[in-house]
């Protein structure tokens, strides 16, 4: 028999309500290891299917704890033997506790920025290359010129999109910077979803954060925003980098 892991907490008062069931309808219990508590349920060795019920069950267990305290959430699908889990907690104890300290009293907020072809951003990138193409067609012509023109169009388009994406990222940080403790930002200029940001925000600053976000959204009607939260801090849970740096493991 193996264990399915949901979260790690250093809060001695952490509890999972009996009414909350885990993946596959299993009951969830707390396992104490070192100075940490881990939410686990019994599991067989079979892969966990990515179904709506299982994903929601995983999130439901973590959220039941998150209402009162901020745990370190596991990603969906961690199935381990009890010995292996204890070994992991022992060897990573310092990194886990440092991360829990950083996350204490804080939550994750998600902001995704989407641009559509019709919002003027993409239209702008297409306008310049077209003008240049007309000029080259008149002066050079030929297959070679057409090839170079296509490369130039590609380059200019990419650069303009990248500049615009960077501008949006900087603008968002400037507007929200005073109410966020830490951020993880992914910028994808070629995609429709151009910026995906995760912000770590103190529970006590949520009202201010939301107010600043609403003001920022009103400033940029050409962009579409998907905002959600508060979330357990999934995007800030990865301790691998800190562990490798601290212990020199590569």
């Amino acid at each position, binding site marked *: 028999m193996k264990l399915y892991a949901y979260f790690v907490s250093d809060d001695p008062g952490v509890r999972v309500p009996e009414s909350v069931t885990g993946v596959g309808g299993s009951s969830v219990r707390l396992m104490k290891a070192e100075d940490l508590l881990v939410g686990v349920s019994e599991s067989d060795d079979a892969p966990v299917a990515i179904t709506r019920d299982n994903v929601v069950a995983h999130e439901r267990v973590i959220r039941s704890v998150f209402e009162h305290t901020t745990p370190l959430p596991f990603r969906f699908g961690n199935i381990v033997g009890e010995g*292996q889990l204890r070994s992991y907690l022992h060897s990573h104890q310092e990194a886990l506790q440092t991360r829990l300290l950083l996350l204490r009293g804080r939550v994750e907020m998600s902001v*995704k920025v989407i641009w559509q072809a019709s919002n003027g951003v993409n239209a702008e990138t297409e306008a310049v290359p077209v003008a240049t193409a007309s000029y080259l067609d008149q002066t050079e012509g030929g297959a070679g010129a057409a090839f170079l023109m296509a490369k130039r169009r590609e380059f200019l388009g990419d650069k303009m999109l990248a500049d615009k994406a960077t501008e949006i990222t900087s603008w968002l940080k400037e507007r929200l910077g005073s109410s966020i403790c830490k951020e993880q930002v992914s910028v994808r200029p070629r995609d429709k979803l151009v910026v995906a940001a995760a912000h770590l925000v103190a529970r006590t600053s949520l009202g201010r954060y939301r107010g600043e976000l609403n003001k920022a959204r009103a400033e940029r009607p050409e962009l*579409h925003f998907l905002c*959600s939260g508060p979330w357990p801090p999934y*995007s800030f849970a*990865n301790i691998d980098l800190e562990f490798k740096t601290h212990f020199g493991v590569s």
Partner: protein
Amino acid sequence: MTSPFESVMAEADLEGLEESDLSLLETLDHVLNSGLVIAGEITISVADIDLIFVGLNVLVSSVEKAHEVLRDRERRAAMTTGSESEVSAQEAQHEMG
């Protein structure tokens, strides 16, 4: 190669998505793409996905991540049995999927 999810993404009408769809997409994005991982111990199956949604790169990246993990796991399993042809067949199947 464009995956079926990317094709859907390209045609997605974001304005038309219901709030509940977005909420579930965000849940997927968080639960499948991030969080603490005990090295090499993610055990998931994408064989019976019943999550059919339109829109957003988050779902595309989540599904791709799942495929990636599953592919690694199957490659390791095949290597222990010494069957290279089985690995190629599985990879081809995933590429098509």
